[in-house]
């Protein structure tokens, strides 16, 4: 007879099943409290973690590209910087989308918000002569106000966030194109990057790389490769990676360690129950809409700093990519379940697949097919895990 480890644990946990039910429940404190309680294996406990699926998928993706693109330079330092930056950009908005999803809402206007935020910083700085730092501040303020409006409308009307934010997805994308053509006469506003570079505050916060000294030292010490000129092959750590780490750590901390985090799970799990135990449902949800808008604006500011221009098609479909990353990371579409760590792994998978596929012999048009399939797998896997977690089967 072949038994798995979990079966063994089960048999060990209940030695005398027939007599146990005769004892009054709870009479003996030292024995397993209840004859109906069984031990679960560490493997099962691990399966109940929301981020497990995304970690497993990340490992699979790395193995795949290790085999098919191992020698192509994808895992050299510059290759790593390549895909990790893509992951970092997506990671920033995936974290915001993930928290909002755990609270039981969506923000489909996220992608359009990225384009609009770019215009909100580009137009005042290029055409009104505002200093760059003020324009960036204005963009953050404007985005967060729009996020608040999204949240307020959803909570006030009790309409699904899907439909309210879908409206804003079109409104903001339309406004972005209107602003751009009105002021610049084209769908792109260029020259913003130079202006950011001239402003010490915005340059220091958002543009280029950090830790350049460390990378130069590592190049001299022979830890990393050098260019023929003696410069390190990678100038430094892109600031977007630091921002990703900061946002993810902050959000992860809030979600798992604070009262507010517990409220996020409660409002997403059952908004009515949350109200009955005294959780301020409206405040929690609206503040997460604001957070998501903040993340979209951060994405836009970093991207405009990096690319040098604002354009009206920026952030196209990013709302879906952020939701996909959160779902691959174990978040439930119905709310109440998910993890920031999972969303970060989801974003990492995106970066690796999107960039990695061009390092292989596979036609890069397959990228979307792979991600779609991965989303489907993740949803099926999450569904399975959740039913096990909640019914204990």
């Amino acid at each position: 007879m072949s038994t798995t480890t979990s079966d063994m644990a089960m048999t060990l946990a209940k030695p005398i099943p027939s007599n146990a039910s005769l004892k009054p429940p709870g009479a003996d404190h030292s024995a397993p409290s209840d004859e109906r309680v069984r031990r679960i294996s560490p493997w099962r406990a691990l399966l109940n973690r929301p981020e497990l699926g995304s970690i497993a998928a990340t490992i699979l993706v790395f193995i795949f590209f290790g085999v098919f693109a191992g020698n192509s330079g994808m895992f050299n330092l510059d290759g790593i910087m390549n895909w990790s930056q893509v992951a970092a950009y997506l990671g920033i908005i995936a974290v915001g989308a993930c928290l909002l999803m755990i609270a039981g809402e969506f923000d489909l206007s996220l992608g359009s918000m990225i384009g609009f935020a770019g215009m909100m910083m580009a137009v005042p700085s290029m055409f009104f002569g505002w200093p760059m730092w003020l324009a960036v501040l204005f963009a953050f303020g404007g985005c967060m106000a729009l996020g608040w409006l999204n949240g307020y409308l959803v909570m006030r009307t009790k309409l699904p966030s899907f439909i309210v934010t879908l409206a804003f997805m079109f409104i903001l994308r339309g406004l972005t194109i209107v602003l751009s053509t009105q002021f610049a006469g084209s769908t792109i506003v260029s020259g913003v990057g130079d202006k950011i570079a001239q402003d010490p505050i915005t340059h220091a916060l958002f543009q280029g790389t950090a830790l350049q000294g460390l990378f130069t030292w590592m190049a001299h010490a022979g830890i990393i490769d050098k260019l023929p000129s003696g410069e390190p092959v990678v100038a430094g750590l892109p600031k977007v990676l630091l921002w990703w780490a900061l946002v993810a750590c902050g959000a992860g901390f809030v979600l798992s360690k604070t009262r507010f985090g517990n409220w996020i799970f409660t409002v997403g799990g059952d908004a009515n129950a949350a109200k009955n135990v005294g959780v301020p449902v409206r405040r929690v949800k609206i503040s997460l809409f604001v957070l998501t808008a903040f993340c979209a604006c951060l994405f836009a500011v970093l991207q405009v700093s990096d690319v040098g221009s604002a354009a009206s098609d920026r952030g196209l479909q990013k709302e879906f990519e952020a939701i996909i990353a959160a779902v691959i990371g174990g978040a439930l579409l119905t709310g109440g379940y998910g993890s920031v760590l999972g969303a970060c792994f989801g974003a990492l998978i995106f970066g690796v697949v999107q960039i990695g596929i061009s390092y292989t012999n596979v036609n890069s048009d397959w990228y979307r097919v792979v991600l779609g399939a991965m989303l489907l797998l993740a949803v099926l896997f999450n569904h399975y895990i959740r039913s096990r977690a909640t019914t204990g089967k």
Partner: protein
Amino acid sequence: MDTAIKNASGSDDYILQLEGVSKFFGTVISLKDVTLRLRRGEVHCLLGDNGAGKSTLIKTLAGVHKPSEGRYLIEGEEVSFKSPREALDCGIATVYQDLALVPLMSVARNFFAGREPTKKLFGMIPVLDMQLAASTAVDKLAEMGIHVRSPHQPVGTMSGGERQCLAIARAIHFGAKVLILDEPTAALGVKQSCNVLKLVHKARERGISVIFITHNVHHAYPIADSFTVLNRGQSMGTFAKSDISKEEVLDMMAGGTEIQSLVDELEGRQAA
């Protein structure tokens, strides 16, 4: 009968009183001149068939509705709650049928949802004290005779009876003086109902007054000290347990005579 109880002991004895309360919704008379007096430390069963006005009465007690007529007194003082929160602050805790539990969250997180214990990280950042939450939840549940596998187990894995007990234990832990239980045994099997009744008994032992709402006399009779029967929005009176038998209570609820006539009819048919 109603006056007999009033005379037997001073009104100071009552922790909660509804005096001649009526509640109208437009043209509908939901409650008509209902008097309910809850003694300190007793289990008072509120019986009534569907539509008898039980829900309206609970919501009036819980601070959701204000009485249209009559007075609501707590420890002899008249109150007028503007929200359920105010009632809760007065120690009137209501456990509704939906229990206000989130299935996907752990026992500990549910137990403290909305009232999480915090501690300071590095002396400045307030964070959840999960260890305290977990150990308190387990201890408090154990005091009530409920044993959970782990405080980190999702509530969704618990049975209906365990969930009911968790919700009641939570209300007691957060300082309920009066516990209002809305059909706590309605969806439960025999054994689980028994556990809930035991828990109600434990609450009474701790000096908590309980209003137990049900339409099941068999669950109400063993545990109750007194009964108030509602029928079509009116009180049929309050009775001490010694004054009334289970059959009489059943009779008083609308179902009693109807069930009896059904029994007669069935027996008659068998005899024929």
